[in-house]
């Protein structure tokens, strides 16, 4: 016990001493998220220094194994570490698809050499990753990917196209699915590859979203050479890896949009908005419909978070994850969309601003965040596909 308390004390004093003052208390500020890599601009001046200090201790991904650069913390220590980060309300020093998606997958399927290289790069925030799954004719039907990879000496030669690649323009590497055997069942002929985006023949074109930003891209491959050693798992064994990674992705999306545990002391942003835009009467939000919708939304959120907790308590107790995990992605994202729509109703006409005069920054931001939230039920597998999976795999309902 005292060992853990020593650990807590040392984390606390180290964070007190080293965490930049400018980011303390800002755990929920999305503008402070640092995605690492060579092309990402620094979100705040000390971001790189802070990242390097944390990475040196392995605390960018504290629970990954120490031998590959992670923090090597056990469950108890990790919990303490998170509590200490939360105490100062510090945002994580690094985020991205490396930590949430490809990292865990490399740890599971990578060779020793691959783990050394890729996990280390991720922990140090040197490489930013993007996901090359979807293609124009392979969205929900992901196994239908057509990007071809043909062996040539030690390399594969890639030809084809990916689409909806989030941050393809800011990523240094891409993990992608390619067709290595066109002659067999769709799922069987797929290989999981790791590609340096600097390679000749890779072309990235940003696509503009309805929110006005361009976070996702089309990526074209013309005779792109990828060393055979960049295959993760075995050749034609990509589908299994793809699905494992999707599991990590869906957990990440569910947490990002559905979760969002607010620190106790901060006022809930929805309540603050209701106070400002609607006002209170006799201690109640003056509009009873909005009040009802807010209560519904917060109850939904509470039940959702309790389900997430029940799942993680189960896992901690040594049980296998139960069927409840299948609902996280679809419920979490739809909850977030309802939350956004409710925020629009609370702001009323003030939420309609796009830019410029007559609107406050928070109003302009909400409009864009709401529009972006419409993608939550698409990215990482649509709600319809998630519900199909629940019906079939969890409930055992037959296809035909």
């Amino acid at each position, binding site marked *: 016990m005292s060992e853990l308390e020593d650990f807590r004390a040392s984390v606390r004093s180290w964070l007190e001493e080293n965490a930049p003052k400018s980011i303390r208390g800002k755990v929920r500020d999305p503008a402070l998220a640092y995605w690492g890599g060579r092309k990402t601009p620094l979100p705040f001046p000390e971001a790189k220094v802070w990242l390097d200090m944390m990475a040196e201790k392995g605390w960018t991904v504290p629970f990954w194994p120490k031998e590959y650069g992670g923090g090597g913390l056990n469950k108890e220590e990790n919990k303490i570490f998170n509590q200490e980060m939360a105490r100062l309300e510090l945002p994580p020093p690094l985020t991205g698809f490396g930590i949430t998606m490809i990292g865990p997958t490399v740890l599971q399927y990578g060779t020793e050499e691959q783990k050394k290289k890729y996990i280390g790069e991720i922990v140090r925030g040197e490489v930013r990753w993007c996901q090359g799954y*979807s293609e124009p*004719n392979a*969205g*929900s*039907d992901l196994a*239908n990917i057509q990007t071809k990879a043909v062996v040539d000496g030690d390399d594969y030669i890639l030809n084809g196209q990916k*689409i*909806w690649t989030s941050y393809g323009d800011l990523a240094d590497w891409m993990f992608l699915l390619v067709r290595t055997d066109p002659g067999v069942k769709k799922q069987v002929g797929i290989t999981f590859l790791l590609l340096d985006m600097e390679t000749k023949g890779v072309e990235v074109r940003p*696509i*503009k*979203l*309805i929110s*006005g930003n361009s976070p996702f891209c089309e990526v074209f491959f013309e005779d792109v050479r990828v060393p055979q050693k960049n295959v993760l798992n075995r050749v034609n064994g990509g589908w299994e890896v793809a699905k494992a990674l999707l599991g990590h992705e869906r957990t990440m999306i569910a947490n990002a949009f559905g979760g969002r545990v607010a620190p106790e002391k901060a006022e809930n942003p929805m309540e603050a908005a209701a106070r400002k*835009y*609607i006002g209170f009467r006799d201690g109640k939000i003056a*509009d009873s*419909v*909005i009040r009802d919708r807010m209560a519904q939304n917060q109850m939904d959120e509470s039940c959702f978070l309790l389900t997430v907790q029940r799942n993680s308590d189960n896992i901690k107790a040594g049980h296998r994850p139960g069927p409840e995990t299948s609902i996280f992605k679809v419920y979490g994202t739809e909850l977030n969309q309802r939350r956004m729509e409710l925020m*629009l*109703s609370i702001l*009323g*006409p*003030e*939420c*309609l*601003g*796009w*830019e*410029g*005069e*007559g*609107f406050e920054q928070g109003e302009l931001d909400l*409009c864009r965040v709401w*529009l972006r939230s*419409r*993608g939550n*039920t*698409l990215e990482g597998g*649509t*709600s*319809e596909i998630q*519900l*199909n999976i629940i019906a079939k795999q969890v409930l055992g309902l037959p296809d035909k």
Partner: protein
Amino acid sequence: MELVLNEEQTMLDQTAKNFIKDNSPITRVRKLRDDGDPLGYSKEMWKKMAELGWTSILFSEEDGGMGLGMAEVVLVTEAMGRGLAPEPFLGTVMLAGQALSIGGSPELREQWLGPIIEGEKALAMAYQEKGGRYDITRIKTSAKKTTNNYLLIGEKTQVLDGFGADAIIVSARTSGEDGEAEGITLFLIPAGTPGMTVTRQWRLDSRNVALVQLKDVEVPESNIVGTVGKGGQLLSQVIDQATVALCGEMLGGMSAAFDRTLGYLKERVQFDVVIGTFQALKHRAAKMFMEIELARSVVMAAARTLDGNDANKEILVSTAKARCSDAYILVTNEAVQMLGGIGMTDEEDTGFYMKRARAAEMTFGDATYHKDRFAALKGY
């Protein structure tokens, strides 16, 4: 009341739809937006619409109009809604034009209605203030009487079609307290009047809306539209009509977004079949269809009760706006979802409808506002 189009209405419906199809595809709105066009619409197009008679439908023959009704107006706005045509129909014809037509002095009518009907002049109605939500009586703009004039001070937000307008009718308080229906007066202020600043605002639907700031603006008594202190009543009468015109637009918009979605369900292949074969999508498409059919009926009915000055007209106006708000949002949300990644792109037109659905929802009161008003009118 018969919910069917007569021969003339069928003709108007067809010409309006064809005109919009041929002259106002979404590419036009897209270009206006991308160019950051300050006016946000085309004066030339507005003139053409006037030549087609759209601007004159509602005005009396005495004022130079056709003396037709809302039943005809909603056919035109529905067509405009299909193409999201941004011309200043609401601000110029439905709000300012109708306020003048109902409450304007012979001189004001003489001066402004002709040019409105000709499509020569654009007008706007400044009634909304920040923080007032959907309540037109919650205004801080004040008008104080001097010897011969009124002195106006205040700020109006999101004034529809206000930027570049030749005149703006402003609601201001001449007596009473914030939130009271009595004591509001409407003043017509020509563009360029000293003390009035009009700044373009940019909303998600890129329509022409403006911030109107009034700093000691002097307005002669002769520019009062309607009666002193009774502007609130005139305004709500005009807004009820405008609401139904907007509902027509929303009906057109949701129909266009639905058509696009339906087409996509029949053409997009995943898992070796068109996605329209999946029951999960089929049933939702069928439900959207039901919502649109219901919306169409209530828009037609609301228009006709206004034309007949029926006792239940306000109830139907609120029913129409509540339903159209909910249906337009449902249809556009579902459209984006069913289009998949494409639905999230700016290149796809559906996003324009999704954005317009929100702006339309929050113009003249959202669904919650109108349900509340409905219940109040019903006496519960």
